[in-house]
Structures are given as C-alpha cells and as structure tokens.
C-alpha cells in the first residue's frame, strides 16, 4: 500500500503571531516556519505503518510556496520516500486544496491519505473531510489510534463525549490528532540522505483544478485584551472579590 501524506508550511507553533501594521495579515518576515504540527504526526504515523510492514511507500505532498521545499525535505529526512510540491504563491483555501489533493490521489492511487486534523494557521479543519467527500471514500477525523487489519482500518477518534471507535474500508482519508504519536527526532545523517531523495516541483496550475468560490478574507485584528493581572493576597480576599463580582 502507498500512503500519501499532505503537509502544510505554517508559522512555527512556538511563535507569538502578530497582526501586521495594516491589518491585512500577520507578520511573516523573519518568522520561523515549520511543518504544521498535526501534519508532522501524520508523517510519523505513515512511517510507523511502513516500518510495521503495513505500507510500502510514503509519499509526502505539499501545496504552497517554493519555500515549502524545506518542510518536504524535513519529511524526507524523517523517512518519507519521495516528495512532491505543487507550487502556489497565493493562499489556497480548503476546498481548492481538497480538489487539488483529489487530482493527486487520482494520479498516485494511494491506499491511505493521512493529514493533520487542522492547520494551525487558518484553524479551518476542513481539507481531510472535503477530500474524503470528493473522493467518495471514508473519513476518520481526530484520530488518536489507528490499526490496520487487511483492507480495513480501526480508528479511535477523540470526540467531545470521549473516545469513539469506527471502522473504515481502505482506501480512506484519516486526519490525525495530537495523541496519535510523538514524531521522531531527525538526525544529521538523515538530513544528508534526504538531500538525495526525489522532490518534484510542479506548478499548481498543472493540476487543472477547477477553482471553487473563495471566501473573501478581510481585516485581521488582535483579539480584545483581557483586563487581567490582579493578584489577591489570600483565600479570604479571593472569596470576597468573587462575591463582589457576583460570580459566587
């Protein structure tokens, strides 16, 4: 089985994101960029499945700027077999991304597509579900445990009521949650080795995606600041303050 993993280049999760001066976006100049953390977990899971003999090939794909080659190289250094970048300098919204992934899926014919449950930049949480719909295949979202038995997958999903199990037939789309695994640390020799692995770069236009209606993105603003920061000296003072405020 071939596993296709989608990854997105995003601002590193450790960076405190700032709105730019004219409110048209966020500050990206000189800011550390990384693989979307959930996507990194997806890469790790694909590699573990390969190591267990449940998959033969792991292909990572990204749709994004030329610089996303860095993130694909990281995935190759983790152990992915090859990578493809569909170059798009403009923002590709979820439905367009899902349509693009469908084209890639039709060309690659993977048995499983693994994606992060959401990208930590737009927090949309849509692409996996949309791809599954367009592909007319099962989806398992928010997955924290995955077991393959023959042509089916048993997935444990993190839902509001606790954990839920579903079973899906392959091929399928799985979006992963934090607790699925801990991505491996990339060692120097692996980074060197990754430089020789195949990384194809193609223009996004080559996919021939019919562009869906797009959301018009307007102003960006910081959230209203909480007026916090008051410290009280004792439990008695706290109780009094809460009673005065009418919350106790």
């Amino acid at each position: 089985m071939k596993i296709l993993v989608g990854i997105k280049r995003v601002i590193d999760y450790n960076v405190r994101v700032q709105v730019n001066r004219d409110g048209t976006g966020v500050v990206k100049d000189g800011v550390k960029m990384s693989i979307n953390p959930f996507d990194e977990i997806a890469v790790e899971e694909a590699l573990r499945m390969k190591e267990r003999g449940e998959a033969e090939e792991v292909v990572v794909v990204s749709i994004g700027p030329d610089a996303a080659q860095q993130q694909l190289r990281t995935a190759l250094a983790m152990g992915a077999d090859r990578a493809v970048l569909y170059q798009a300098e403009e923002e590709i919204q979820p439905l367009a991304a899902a349509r693009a992934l469908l084209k890639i899926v039709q060309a690659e014919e993977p048995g499983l597509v693994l994606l992060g449950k959401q990208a930590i930049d737009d927090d949309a949480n849509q692409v996996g579900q949309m791809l599954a719909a367009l592909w007319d295949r099962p989806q398992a979202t928010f997955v924290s445990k995955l077991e393959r038995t023959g042509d089916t997958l048993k997935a444990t999903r993190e839902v509001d009521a606790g954990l839920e199990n579903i079973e899906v037939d392959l091929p399928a789309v799985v979006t992963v949650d934090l607790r699925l695994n801990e991505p491996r640390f990339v060692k120097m020799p692996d980074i060197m080795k990754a430089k020789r692995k195949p990384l194809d770069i193609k223009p996004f236009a080559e996919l021939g995606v019919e562009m869906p209606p797009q959301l018009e993105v307007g102003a960006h603003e910081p959230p209203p600041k909480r007026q916090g920061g008051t410290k009280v000296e004792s439990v008695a003072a706290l109780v009094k303050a809460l009673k005065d405020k009418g919350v106790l």
Partner: protein
Amino acid sequence: MSRVLLIADHDGKTLNTGIARTVACARQLGNVHVAVFHAPDADAACAAAAKLDGVSRVLSVSHEANGTPLAAVLAPQIARLAAAHEGGYDYVLAPSTTFGKDVLPRVAALLGVPQVSDLMEVIDARTFKRPIYAGNVITTVKVPEGIPVLATVRIASFQAVGEAGEAPIVAAQAEAELPGHSRYLGLAESGGSDRPDLQSAPRVVAGGRGVGSKENFEIVFKLADKIGAAVGASRAAVDAGYVPNDMQVGQTGKIIAPDLYIAVGISGAIQHMTGIKDAGCIVAINKDGDAPIFEAADFGLVGDLFTLLPELEKALDA
C-alpha cells in the same frame, strides 16, 4: 426572509447543549429549521429542539442508517436536504463540536462551496468574524454572493436561547445514496460523570500539570462539587494521564465560556488560553507567580494549591 438549516448534534437521547447557542447565532440570519437525523423510534432530540426559542420548524429525518453519527452517511443526506428541501436553504450551520467539524466540511465539498469554520460573530448576512492562529488573530471573511453560506459556529461566542418555543416537528425526507464503507463501533471511553457538562456549565474548575497525579485530581473534583462546577483540565494534565481527554480545555480540546473559570496548577500556555478567552471571570491558583495565566486572570492567587484549595472550600462554607 433567509432560510437557515441547523444540523442538530445529539446522542440519540439528548440534544447537545451547544445547539441552543448555535440557534442564537442562526436566528440572527433568518428563519431557523433544525434538522435532527436519527434512527426510527429514537427521536427524543426532536422534542428538545422544538422547544428552543427562535426555531420555527424541526425536520425529523428518520432512517435506519442515522442511528450513529457517521459523517460519510449523514453528509449526502444533509447536502440533499440543504439543496432541495422546499427550494433550498441560504445557510447551513452546525455547532463547532467534534460532530459539526466532522460532518459539515463533507457537506460543503458535496455542495462545492467554501465553509466558514468557527464563526464567532455575525457582521452582516455574508460577513463574519472567526479566530485563526489559535485565537491570537481575529479575521473577517465574506462569503461570495449566489451560494449558500456554510458555517460551523463557535458555541462559546453565543449565549444559549431559552426553551419556551413550540416549533412543529415534521418528518422530512433526505434520500441519498448511502455508503457502506464506514462503520460505527461505539464509544470507547467516556467521562460519563454526574457533574455538569463542561461546555455549558456556568462554573468550571480545571486542573493542570501542577496537580501532579491522577489521585491528586480528587482535590479539583472536590472543589468543583462544592460550587456545582464542571471539571476541566489542561492538555498537560490529560497527556500525563490524570484525566480523560474529553475534559481537555484549549485549542485542541474544548472551547468554553463559563461565568467563572478557576484554573488550578495551570500555567496558561497560549493553546490553553484559546479555550477560555470568553470566560466571564478567570481565577488562577498557581505557585509560580510568573506563570503567564496571571496576565489574563481577573484574580490570581500565588501559592501551593494543596494548601489553598482546602482553605478555599472552608471559606466557601463560611
């Protein structure tokens, strides 16, 4: 008047508490119909939906396949209902619960339209605010004219509507070809306590890594029971195995907006603060006076939680 289709999140018996909050958003947009997909003879959630103020009709969609919440099974039916029922809907909304987040993008793709995730404020009929970057940035998005608006609604941003409504419940058909490739096996683990529901409780007490162990978490439960609060936890506490994941508050857990939030032994990572930004009053109890949560807390108390919590309980008796 615009027509809004709201997809109910329920467990076969009770309606998710987020629905009353989603209705508050939906009624700003038009005439609200709530669709309840359920198994035959399991339609208790319909009656609950009919009571919500602002709901003008409940569409009861009964089908053998609808007894379990599988997105692959429900999405084609929702898409069908949204596009065809009485000429189609202008809006299709679902709460930003794991159910809504699972199913609605699948519907959006079938309809070929974009989705607004985590809608937090209605600016006008097509313009909305939503959080990005873990709530550190609020952005405004506009849905182009001529297509239905699909959105998941950030329930913490809306106050629940009342329950004095009397909407008629009507049977609706949503015939679509249903796949057999996905099977629901059941809940593997559930919090299942008698305590108030984390997402709707007016008071929440939450513990973090500072609580130290599963056994020590009892101290958090005790304080919560004392003030009738729900119990939450930071991701660190969940990862350490102190409590199950469904208690997690934060970017990757639940986003809540109680009147009172007491954070015990929680340092206040950005991802956690995302989950409580809309809380009415935040109290932080932590031995590290420099913990970032104190910057956001309305009231901070620096000290050992194992001394302060019992003291607090006693003070509440007085």
